[in-house]
């Protein structure tokens, strides 16, 4: 007899969603299986704390699955999931006011005073030894460099170059103009080049 989970694996996201709407638990679990790693990876790299990332990833999936009836199939399911994951992570960062904002200040700041006011320290140096070991295991240099980016840049660069999403889809996910997304990604790559510049030497 065929295992229903293995047959679900062959279906498209849209078909699995239709089964989830019918209340099939196996379909819910299949959607979690497909997206738990990319969602957790994205959120972890946004918040840099495993426990928090687990909680936020869990919150993301609960939001997604409880709203599955309102999902509109004309949009990509993955875009919807990443949009909710990113919003959840950004909301958390705003609440916590983490100390990982960019050296360059807010991209919306237009005057020197505003730029100075929004320019924060890169890090308060409070990473524990455990965090440092974990960072090394995860690819140390680039992970640390990503952590020093503004959250908006981080979302864009991770979605573009880690998840491989096109600019247009990122713009849709983050509710940003296409030009803004391109600017964020270019600035993020510029900051990462600067941060990793010593590796060339």
């Amino acid at each position: 007899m065929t295992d229903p989970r293995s047959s679900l694996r062959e279906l498209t996201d849209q078909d699995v969603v239709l089964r989830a709407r019918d209340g099939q638990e196996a379909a819910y679990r299949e959607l979690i299986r497909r997206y738990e790693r990319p969602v957790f990876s994205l959120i972890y790299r946004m918040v840099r704390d495993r426990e928090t990332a687990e909680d936020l990833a869990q919150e993301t999936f609960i939001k997604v699955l409880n709203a599955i009836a309102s999902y509109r199939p004309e949009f990509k399911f993955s875009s919807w999931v990443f949009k909710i994951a990113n919003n959840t992570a950004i909301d958390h960062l705003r609440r916590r006011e983490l100390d990982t904002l960019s050296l360059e200040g807010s991209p919306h700041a237009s005057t020197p005073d505003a730029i100075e006011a929004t320019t924060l320290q890169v890090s308060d140096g409070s990473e524990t030894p455990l965090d440092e070991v974990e960072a090394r295991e995860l690819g140390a240099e680039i992970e640390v460099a990503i952590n020093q980016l503004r959250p908006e840049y981080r979302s864009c660069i991770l979605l573009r170059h880690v998840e491989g999403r096109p600019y247009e889809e990122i713009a849709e996910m983050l509710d940003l103009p296409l030009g803004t997304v391109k600017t964020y990604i270019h600035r993020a790559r510029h900051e990462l080049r600067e941060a990793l510049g010593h590796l060339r030497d």
Partner: protein
Amino acid sequence: MSSPHLMHLTPDDLDALLLGTEQERVHVHLETCAECRALVVADRNVVVALESLPSLAPRAGFADRVMAGVTRPVAVPRRLPALARAAALGLVFLGGLAASISWSLANEPMLMAWREGGLKWAEGWLQLGLSGLWAELSRQSWYATVLDAFGSPTRLTVALAGMLLIYGAGLVALRRLTALPSSGTASHAA
């Protein structure tokens, strides 16, 4: 004005190089500009490092923890689309009709016999019922009085006119009772 191939690469040029959609002038420029060659190498290194980042997994039992917070809709059997349901009903109706006609044509004598028998049976019961009702009415104490009241054409006419008047008055009263209040009345009341 400087020639296009002398201008340093833009972020869009770097994007195009990553996608392999760069213009010829980019290659011409890179041949002569060490600064931009270094920029391209650094940019590629960053992108390769990003693309090779490992995919991270949450702790075991993640799906169970998520499912504990999810409210699943109650499974309902799938209904046929409205058009399919209408077509199915139509087919059943037409099939039944066709079966009924063909059976009737094949068993016409039997149907005629049933018809005759049914009519006789209904006629007998109707006669019995009416005669029983008449006998029962004529045995009532008020029967003679009522018969006497309608005994002459004049009395019958008066009685009928009275009944018509009562019926008309009833209709007028009912119409007034069921009429919606007019706006004038409502605003006046307000």
